């Protein structure tokens, strides 16, 4: 924590950044906040901890308003993958973002089943090994097709259409969202059209999902959407050899779709 505070203070004082998006302990809760030269006195309240908020999303809002300024942001492994993709999608400018890293605790890494629970560089925490294969996913893959279908339909039926999974997603930045396309998904009823609503979102996560899991944490209905997107990521890796946010080279496979035809039977393998 102290190391993070010191680093942020230095970046601000040396004018390397104009603001830092991190977490501030206030009223006994960690909350998203921007530290700046105007409020250096509050640096002591900067915290790290295991509670996560979509800080990249806050960064997009602030940098959208101040495109000429440079901002720091606290990043974990997933957030760094997010920044990499956001740069590719021209949502952020490379010279205008300075990430300050945190390596996740092993508890958090286990909970997330994260394959890379640390960014390329960090000032807080220690590196813990990533988890190669998600147990949650394996459990579902162990079901036969009929069980799997009924499992998911049953899960999706709990949805209260809060759109929280989308609204919290640091990679959802489209102006027009296909989940709101009335020609595609009917509205006005709970649960939303099943499985159209959820599969639409899943498809749009191709090349976008950085496996931060904020969607699942935001789901009031405990729907394991992260597990679903983990599967999507696995398919993307297998078929396109693309790992979202892993390297700044190469484009997302969504940009390729159209040239490649996928047979449904392939995906069912």
């Amino acid at each position, binding site marked *: 924590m102290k190391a993070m505070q010191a680093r942020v203070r230095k970046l601000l004082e040396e004018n390397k950044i104009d603001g830092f998006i991190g977490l501030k302990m206030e009223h006994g809760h960690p909350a998203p906040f921007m530290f700046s030269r105007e409020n250096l006195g509050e640096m002591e309240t900067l915290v790290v901890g295991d509670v996560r908020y979509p800080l990249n999303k806050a960064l997009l809002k602030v940098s959208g308003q101040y495109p000429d300024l440079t901002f720091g942001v606290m990043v974990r492994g997933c957030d760094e993958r997010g920044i990499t993709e956001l740069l590719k999608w021209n949502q952020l400018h490379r010279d205008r973002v300075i990430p300050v890293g945190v390596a996740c605790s092993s508890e958090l890494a286990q909970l997330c089943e994260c394959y890379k629970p640390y960014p390329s560089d960090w000032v807080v925490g220690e590196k813990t090994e990533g988890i190669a294969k998600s147990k949650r996913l394996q459990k579902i893959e162990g079901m036969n097709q009929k069980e799997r279908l009924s499992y998911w339909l049953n899960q999706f*039926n709990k949805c*209260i259409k809060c759109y929280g999974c989308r609204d919290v997603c640091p990679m959802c930045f489209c102006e027009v969202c296909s989940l709101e396309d009335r020609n595609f998904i009917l509205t006005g009823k709970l649960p939303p059209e099943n499985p159209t609503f959820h599969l639409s979102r899943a498809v749009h996560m191709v090349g976008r999902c950085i496996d931060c899991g904020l969607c699942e944490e935001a789901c009031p*209905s*405990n729907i394991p959407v992260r597990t679903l997107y983990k599967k999507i990521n696995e398919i993307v890796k297998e078929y396109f050899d693309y790992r979202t946010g892993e390297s700044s080279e190469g484009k997302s496979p969504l940009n390729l779709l159209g040239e490649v035809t996928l047979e449904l039977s392939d995906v069912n393998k």
Partner: protein
Amino acid sequence: MTNSIAEIENSKCIFIIGSNTSEAHPLIGSRILKAKEKGAKLIVADPRKIQLSFYADIFVRHQLGTDVALINGILNVILKEGWYDRKFVEERTEGFKEFRKVVEKYTPENVEKITGVRAQDIRKIADLYARSKSSSIIYAMGITQHITGVDNVKSLCNLAMLCGQIGRESTGVNPLRGQNNVQGACDMGGLPNVYPGNQPVSDGQMAEKFEKAWGTKLSTKPGMTLTEMLKAAMAGEVKAMFILGENPMVSDVDIQHVEKSLEALDFLVVQDIFMSETARLADVVLPGVSFAEKDGTFTNTERKVKRVRKAIEPIGSSRQDWDIICDLSTRMGYPMRYDDPSKILEEVAQVTPSYGGIYYDRIETEGLHWPCPNRAHPGTPYLHKDRFSRGLGLFHAIEYLPPEELPDKEYPYFLTTGRIYVHYHTGTMTRRSPSLNKEVEEGFAEINPRQAKELGIIQGERIKVFSRRGEIEIKADLSERMERNTIFIPFHFVESAANRLTNPAFDPIAQIPEFKVCAVKIEKVNH
């Protein structure tokens, strides 16, 4: 609620009646699902096939307005099978004999005839509810908005007492309040017969206490309820009204009557953030602010007092509502001055025993459940631990009474009203929220598809719905949620206001109108 929201998650059995929880109280709905995932049994009784019914161990659709009969049927089985908590009944209740006599008539077979619920299902509900280790009852307006609303609630209390499913963790009788601070509005004395904290105005000692605190003489004569106010306004007996942030023009049963009453006033003041249908009728409109522009507290449905914090400055020249009231009072010759809202809650704590220990510094991080009588008290997540407010719990012997208006030849269908997940109350806020408005832009009438077919109505077609009070035009929405004889209309939409149709008959004690049942007819619109 007698018990807290968090406790729901650990209930072993949850009985939901008259509450479409996942749409009207979504984050309580999600607790119910969490309980289910932990192994709780779920009982859902609702005339509509609501989302939670998918997860119910038993789901029954009782005929509208037959709640008392259904509950008496459940009680009957529990008594007959001896599944009740004898110790609890002996030690903590009275009135059991008379109660038993009435309930004995309601055999499951008799109740099946009234409610349409199969006798075997009634037995199953009784079994699950009575024999689970901890059972909670959750209800909302589907129970209260009937001419027998009070009877319905008392019947649910009978059930909880008979089985000793109250006064313990994860049990209780839990009404879900519709609006964010209904609980608080009542707690703060927004009622004609009580001061803050339910202290009767007719009790001389109470009046004396408040006279001392407020330094003025007070009336011990209970005032009028909203329904009585409107009647009195029409008769010229009430000449002026001051309405703070409410829109009875859409929310009240029988809108036409409300409109006439408010127009009959000599002077109407409305303090609100938007030009609501009610504000339009005002002589003076005072612009208050939203929750985002002020400090204060709300008391949620579980009696938890939580902080509201100012995020932005008031818009335009609008002013914080508490500040407007203070200013007005001062101009009327009674100076009211508080540095900030925390000082107002300090005064509340002085005069309201249940809020006696609730101060801003104590609810910085986490709210407190009242009753919280002093600064050292940790708050009370669940009520009635060792005794009921009146001492012994009183059983009520309650007979079933049908709704005031039933379908007949001329008006052959039931109409019931309610909320949908996107909108809130009369829509003054949600319909001005672009994301929410886009989600559902207009009202609709849910009709059973087979019924619609018989009437030649297709999905999305405009239809007319008539009752003895009025008529509206609305979009038809064919839905398997509805049974053949019943249609559902959400009440948020002023241009197709369900409350132009609803029946102004109301519960004689609670004065809650029978929003949930009336008789209507349907016609196609031929343009």
